């Protein structure tokens, strides 16, 4: 069961991850699966969706980049200040089988929901490869956490300040192609999970299709109610709600979502093409 009107929770702790990214921690335990999201209300400002992150010793946290009015207001808040919580909402990632091998491909803040999945996977002795890409070294989140739980890191930055200089897509592609060429069975991924900018997700999907690797992707659409009523986040042509049937969609179902990588809808419901889409 989800909470569908704001439950006021005091911020227990705030960690500054980078100059414009903070993690907010809460003493509130509830059942949620990796990939699910919540709505956080900043009273008098706005309410926005955030990926739910859980880790050992921490009930629940969200990692927030100060980008818009709401997230900037959230960054101004102090320990003890209250925000409204609703959720958990949406579909979740399939928990990988024991001792399997998986790849998490995260661009930017996409690591938020994948961090929780990485921890759940490591509890099951899963070999977790994380292809984490960001603009610069300081934008690479959760590195300590991921190292501590034994995740194999493949880092990339746009400016080369850490790891491979370029996109994580290229790093991932190279890895997959090398391993498929040499047919190294143990290095083949049983499953790939990707969260990040849609253009990145689209490219990861193409690689996975080409190499017949099952995968799951988290699709972000404009959220209003979060519980399947308003229709704002429905995708073409199937009409699935990204807050109920999504946001996590598997590679087979993704073939039916023709708008993926091409366009999305604004708050008014107007179709807005992505700049890269033909």
């Amino acid at each position, binding site marked *: 069961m989800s909470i*569908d*009107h*704001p439950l*006021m929770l005091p911020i227990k702790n705030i960690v500054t991850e980078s100059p414009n990214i903070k993690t907010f921690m809460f003493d509130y335990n509830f059942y949620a699966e990796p990939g699910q999201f919540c*709505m956080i*209300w900043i*009273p*008098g400002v*706005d*309410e*926005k969706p955030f990926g739910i992150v859980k880790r050992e010793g921490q009930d629940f946290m969200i990692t927030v980049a100060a980008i818009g009015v709401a997230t900037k207001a959230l960054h101004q808040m102090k320990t003890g200040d*209250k925000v*409204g919580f609703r959720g958990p909402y949406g579909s979740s990632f399939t928990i990988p089988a024991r001792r399997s091998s998986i790849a998490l491909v995260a661009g930017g803040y996409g690591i938020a929901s994948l961090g929780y999945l990485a921890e759940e996977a490591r509890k099951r002795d899963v070999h977790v490869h994380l292809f984490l890409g960001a603009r610069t070294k300081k934008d690479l989140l959760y590195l300590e956490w991921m190292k501590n739980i034994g995740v194999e890191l493949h880092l990339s930055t746009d400016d080369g300040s850490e790891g491979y200089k370029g996109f994580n897509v290229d790093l991932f592609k190279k890895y997959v192609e090398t391993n498929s060429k040499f047919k190294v069975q143990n290095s083949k991924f049983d499953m790939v999970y990707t969260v990040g900018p849609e253009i990145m997700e689209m490219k990861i999907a193409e690689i996975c299709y080409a190499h017949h690797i099952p995968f799951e992707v988290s699709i972000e659409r404009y*959220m*209003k*109610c979060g*519980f*399947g*009523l*308003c*229709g*704002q986040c*429905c*995708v*073409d*042509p*199937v*009409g*699935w*709600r990204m807050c*109920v049937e999504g946001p996590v969609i598997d590679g087979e179902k993704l073939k039916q979502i023709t708008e993926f990588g091409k366009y999305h*809808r*604004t*708050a*008014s*419901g*107007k*179709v807005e093409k992505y700049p890269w889409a033909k």
Partner: protein
Amino acid sequence: MIDLSVNLAGIKLKNPTILASGIMGVSASSLKFVEENGAGAVTIKSIGPTDRTGHKNPTVLAFDNRMVNAVGLSNPGVDTEVHIVKEAHERLNVPLIVSIFADTIDNFAVVADKLLETHPKIIELNLSCPNTDNEFGKMFALDADDTRKVITLVKKVTQGTDIKIFTKLTPEEEDFAELGKVVEDAGADGITTINTIFSMNIDIYSRKPILSNAYGGISGPAIKPVGIESVYTLYETVSIPIIGMGGILTGEDAIEYIMAGATAVGIGSGVYYRGIDIFQKVTSEIEDFMKKEGYKSIEEMRGIAHNS
């Protein structure tokens, strides 16, 4: 053989369940998804003259027995909506109800006129949305004179077509029966009621209204008795068909509305309480009840609460 179909102002519905306006109907795809889940007809989210973002979040809240919303009539505007309506007509097998709103009486006619090329079957005039800013002033349906003017003007625009005009009313008008009579006399082909009812929730910790618009409209099980009373009252005064709604979650709820006099029933908040397949569930529950109680058609049950 049990007949679940209904005749709504000359339009045949395979079952009496209709997706209410403002729920799901943002795109042709979302309407199609609702059709696939069993709706007898679907209503597109209200179309206005221009692109509107609507209110900031929180816009929709849910509680055990009620929902409160102030989405704020977000829509891309009629010029874009014309294409959405056309796509919906191409893809849907069930009738589409085209809900419209406007900021002025004249603009109702402008929106209706632009939609003519899509050949709508039913245009529903949303005269009773409680979620708009001051720019809209007083709700149209709280003023019998404005209500009459809007209907008359839109009827003029649709003259010579088969388009049926339904009017969405709120029970907040003091003399509801009289308003129904005004609507019928102005030439409306049907009435949809009830809309949501004015309401507010305040968070006592931040000491602020929760909805960004502060005011919202309440819907769901809590308002069902109000809806039943409204339909019952209208059925006594008008002879045009009524789409009854407000808190319908089960087949029993739907039958209560039909017995009060509704020709068909709208489902909105029920999507939250019972899932997107509520249309299938309600229809099969209606059928079960009819089997058990020996009814052969929906028609047999309509308005029978008035016979006692």
